């Protein structure tokens, strides 16, 4: 319970300091640009670090030595810039003898895991959804002692670069299972999941002319799934829906949650919820935030 806990400062171990002391961490936490700079996703980074700290994982971050993986450049066709970034990062990682990397960003995950090997960077790369699943399986995280999600409705939005790109569908769902919430699946989920609209460097540009934003299409699907309004679901296909401004059925205290596992999905879904004026009863959270919150680690 909140009133029974004390808070303790967390000093995040930086790789350069560890190396200076001749130490090497078990795993490197790759924060990613969104995790480092985006105000909303910084909260995810902090939540994940709280979990790492709480569990006692021997980890470190690169801190200011980290640089963009090059993912957006590669998806946009700028292979030259991508390879410059990749080789610089590989030099940094190899300089510290890094063997294992965990990251909360599916784009960083995909790039380091699948595209760095061709340029000489071979690491064991793990996404935080899989990492959290392992902590749960090992009994190190129980999702007890903090906020209760019991009975609250949660739907998980698949990230393309986690799902179709790397076939990770079950880990994030296994993490959500531990919350004992009312998990509901969107019609377009897993291999059929609909993109949030931000991939392929779309995050940094306006969409081409069309009749709808992709994130609105996806948010309408998520909201209709959480609300249980099938009529809306059946009409979704790029058509502006008449989704009710208020949910069809009253929700349990605390409201419903759209769970994400990617910084770009976070931005797009949160913007969508705001656009639909549903911020008062629907929140967008990353898996790490939900777990840190349920474990009572927030301070």
């Amino acid at each position, binding site marked *: 319970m909140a009133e029974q806990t004390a*808070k303790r400062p967390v000093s995040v171990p930086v790789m350069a300091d560890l190396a200076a002391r001749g130490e090497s961490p078990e795993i490197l936490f790759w924060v990613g640009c969104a995790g480092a700079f985006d105000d909303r996703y910084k909260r995810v980074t902090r939540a994940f670090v709280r979990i790492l700290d709480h569990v006692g994982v021997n980890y470190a971050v690169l801190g*200011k030595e980290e640089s963009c993986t090059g993912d957006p450049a590669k998806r946009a*066709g*700028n292979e030259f810039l991508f390879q410059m970034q990749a080789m610089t990062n590989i*030099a940094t990682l190899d300089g510290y003898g890094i063997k294992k990397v965990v990251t909360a960003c599916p784009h960083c995950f995909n790039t380091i895991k699948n595209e760095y090997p061709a340029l000489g960077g071979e690491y064991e790369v793990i996404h935080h959804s899989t990492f959290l699943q392992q902590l749960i399986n090992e009994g190190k995280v129980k999702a007890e002692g903090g906020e209760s999600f019991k009975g609250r409705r949660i739907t998980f939005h698949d990230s393309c670069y986690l799902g179709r790109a790397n076939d990770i569908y079950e880990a994030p769902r296994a993490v959500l299972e531990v919350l004992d919430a009312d998990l509901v699946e969107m019609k377009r989920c897993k291999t059929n999941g609909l993109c949030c609209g931000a991939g392929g460097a779309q995050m940094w540009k*306006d969409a081409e002319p069309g009749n709808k934003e*992709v994130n609105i299409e996806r948010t309408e699907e998520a909201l209709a799934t959480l609300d249980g309004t099938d009529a809306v679901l059946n009409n979704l296909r790029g058509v502006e829906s008449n989704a009710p401004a208020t949910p069809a059925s009253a929700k349990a205290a605390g409201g419903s949650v759209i769970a994400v596992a990617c910084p770009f999905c976070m931005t797009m879904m949160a913007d969508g919820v705001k656009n639909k004026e549903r911020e008062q009863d629907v929140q967008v959270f990353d898996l790490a935030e939900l777990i840190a919150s349920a474990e009572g680690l927030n301070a």
Partner: protein
Amino acid sequence: MHFSIQNIIFLLVALAGFGLFAWQASRIRANVLVGRDRDMSGHVNERLWKTLLVAFGQQKMFKRLTPAFLHLIVYVGFIVINIEVIEIMVDGLFGTHRFLQFTGPFYSALTGTNEILGALVIVAVVAFWWRRNGNVVKRFTGPEMRAWPKMDANIILYVEVVLMAALFLMNTADLKAYQLQGLDLPGAYPISQFLTGLLPDSVPTLHALERVGWWAHIVGILLFLNYLPSSKHFHIIMAFPNVYFSRLIPQGQFSNVESITHEVKAMMDPSYAVPAPATNPDGSAVAPAPFGAKDVDDLAWTNLLNAYSCTECGRCTSVCPANITGKLLSPRKIIMDTRDRMEEKYNAPLLFSPALYGAEAKHDPQEQLDKENHTLLRGYVTPEELWACTTCNACVEACPVNINPLDSIIEMRRFLVLEESAAPNALNAMFSNIENNGAPWAFSPSDRFNWADDLFVAEKGTLEVKS
């Protein structure tokens, strides 16, 4: 055995049919091979297993059940009924009649199965026709579904009905002629036995009708075979090599451009020795290939194989987030454009020269394009289409024959960015940010670790309050 002039005619017709097809196939092979090299060798067992599941087993079709069952009927019908083509070939060449009848019970099973499948194929084809022409399935429409693709799709359905009708005419006439003579026709005819009343009672006429059905069936098959290379129906052959040669790596992994790797390594390490460029037979250096793809010959041969394997079903486009929300991008159009451009620039198909339907096939402003820009990129595919892609892999996942439109899209984006510096301004700003700040946003690298400031964790299980 009644060897006659018919057998000689049949031999000539069959030779002409198969010969023409072999010639057409060699021209298509040449088209595919204009593409760039990409090593797809090795992993034979893994590739065979995938071909068995996805191509033979129709695994990915079963994401949508109604078309999956209809398609399965036509697919199984195609394979099983073609066993009878072996018999037709032998009968045609040697003047035998129903040569396989010596197999006894097996022959009854074969002919019986064929009749039931033949009837089911007609039912499935009618359903297909209605789905396509009754405005039932949205994905059969779209700007790229112009006059020829629409006509092609219907021609295929009509031909399938004609082929099945010929089969039933042959069987019914044969069966009735035998019955009138008080004989038993070997084999089982669960459908034709109900159709005998439709035919006249004259044995010579029935013999003639049996010949009409027989010839219509085999000549129809040979004509259809030679129609395939001009048609989307070519997928019945190309799906198999296309699935076999499809990627085994994770869908998120984009190809590495090796020539750039050499350049970047040389920049980072001045002692790095860049491999000497390949040389022509006369000793001169081969001109470096452009980065990315402007035209079909800049794409990999697998991308071109994709184009010949596409049956224009539109599953890719129907799940594309850009297309769903009204953008110009349609993955199916990228693939269809690739085939049209190949057929325009290199070997054209036999029946439908791109010149005949090409003007309509190209993108509107093509008249204004000079010769240099009359290429796949810009002549057919516009930058607006390419920039709408979210690289989400939904199209790749949806394709029943493992076509990868995303691969071609990225190659063309590479050409726009690396050869023409023609990225949208917002993306150029993002590139500058990465170069200058090590992040796609305009934040100072010195602020990268600020997220860790004032970070606390709740300490559980203690009542002692620390400061």
